[in-house]
């Protein structure tokens, strides 16, 4: 698996006073098994980057390659067959009036789409139950509960299972713990780490928490004005503190930040 973003630009409200460069000729590539955390202020282009990768938004110029295939103009639902995505809002990732089991089956169908008039088999259901039990939240005993009755943290944990039930080529996590309380957020982050590392899933994760951006994953990108300002990995990243990262960012951008508040 490899992802290549080649000179991608996306400008909103072009030729108006509200013109805003969502992505400004951005270039970067992701290699197999990388777990990249992405930070940056509001409007830096993090979500736009995810939107062009997943196909919610088409880019103005440049192209996107996944595994050597140009996916720039492939519709969103087709890309979703190999790109898993989780949103900030836990309500967005699940169908509230369907049961936990039914939601998971829909996610599982990504791999078995050919038999659309077949009901899910016992084996499929057992597999789903098994994967759900790995969360350790006891949700496997609530397979017939309507998912709308679960808490935000539980729903986000299930969404995580749904996105990775069939191993995606790429997993996009868009501040997926931001709407949760601190305890649930921590537990979902731990689950994320476990699932991503356990299955060796290539992952991009947007976060507003610089500490967890440095703790999780093996590469960190800081975005600014639609481009990449800082891109660090390896031993440099290992020994880096939040302050070091901010200093590095300031040096490059020549802006002054007192602390990380500006970025939060």
């Amino acid at each position, binding site marked *: 698996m490899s992802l290549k973003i080649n000179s991608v630009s996306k400008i909103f409200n072009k030729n108006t006073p509200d013109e805003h460069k969502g992505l400004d000729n951005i270039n970067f590539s992701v290699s197999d098994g990388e777990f990249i955390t992405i930070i940056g202020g509001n409007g830096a282009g993090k979500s736009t980057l995810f939107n062009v990768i997943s196909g919610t938004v088409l880019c103005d110029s440049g192209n996107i390659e996944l595994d050597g295939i140009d996916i720039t103009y492939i519709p969103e639902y087709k890309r*979703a067959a190999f790109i898993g995505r989780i949103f900030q809002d836990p309500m967005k990732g*699940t*169908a*509230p009036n369907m049961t936990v089991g039914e939601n998971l*089956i*829909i996610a599982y*169908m990504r791999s*078995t789409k050919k038999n659309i008039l077949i*009901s899910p088999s016992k084996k499929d259901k057992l597999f789903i139950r098994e994967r759900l039990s790995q969360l350790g939240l006891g949700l496997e005993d609530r397979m017939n509960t309507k998912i709308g009755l679960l808490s935000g943290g539980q729903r986000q944990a299930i969404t995580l299972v749904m996105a990775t039930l069939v191993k995606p080529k790429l997993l996009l996590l868009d501040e997926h713990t931001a709407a949760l309380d601190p305890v649930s957020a921590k537990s979902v982050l731990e689950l994320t780490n476990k699932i991503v590392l356990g299955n060796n899933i290539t992952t991009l994760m947007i976060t507003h928490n610089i500490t967890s951006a440095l703790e999780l994953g093996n590469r960190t990108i800081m975005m600014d004005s639609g481009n990449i300002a800082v891109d660090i990995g390896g031993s440099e990243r290992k020994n880096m503190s939040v302050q070091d990262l901010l200093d590095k960012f300031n040096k490059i951008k020549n802006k002054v930040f007192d602390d990380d508040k500006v970025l939060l």
Partner: protein
Amino acid sequence: MSLVSFIGAIELGLVYSLLAFGSFISFKILNIADLTVDGSFVLGAAASAILAFNGMPYAGVIAAVIAGALAGVVTALLQTKFGIQPILSGILTMTGLYSINLMVMDGKANIPLLNKTNIFTLAETLIGGKTYKIVVLLIIVAFIFAVLNWFFRTQLGLSLRATGDNEAMCKASSIDTDTVKVVGFAISNAIVALSGALLAQMQQSADVNMGSGMVVISFASIIIGSVIIKNRNITLGFLSVIIGSVIYRLIIALILTTKFPPSYLKLISSLVVIIALSIPNIKRKMEINKLRRSINHVS
């Protein structure tokens, strides 16, 4: 109520339960009120009547189902591919269908089918009595009920339910929601047309205006059913639709035994739907007011 009008109400209830199945799929499962129904119901009746008139009652029913499905496809394409608002898409198809229905009926506003062979003729000679129509209708309704129960548990059926529940999540799960909607509307309107087709042959006439208010009638049946059986799963949901539809017809038959003028029936249907849909809102407002009053009381 006489036995004849009681049996008549059951017959109508069963026929209209198919109509309500169709609306249940669009309104409750896909979460879109589909007004095509008023037109596709007549389309089914027209196709069935014109073929029965020419001695082909069974072909008439099959043609009705296919024509209804096509009407549903048109509405779905207007919504998904042409981006027209869902309600307006239904109205456009329904309005256009009026002309098409007249065309199917050979330009006549009414096709009488007296003394023509229909799909109930065989059962009449085999079973006879007063209940033979009910037997035929029960078999058809049970068959459609079984098919729908199976379908909504298949992968395509699950995708349909999820599309109505959370479209963004479906796209993220690699479901082509546009295609799913086309399939949903086709099935929904095919069943509605079947309902019209059966009604035309049962009442031995088809009229170009017989579809007006069908959407509201089907909603009323769905709502009455949901009061009696809580829609905990899809099977109970479809079962509640049959029961709701039969009860609705029994209520109408009861009203007709009084001196109440039948011209008010449509108004009553509308009121039933308005009251049922507004109750949750009114209840909540009343609870808030109650809470406010009790707090004022304390202070």
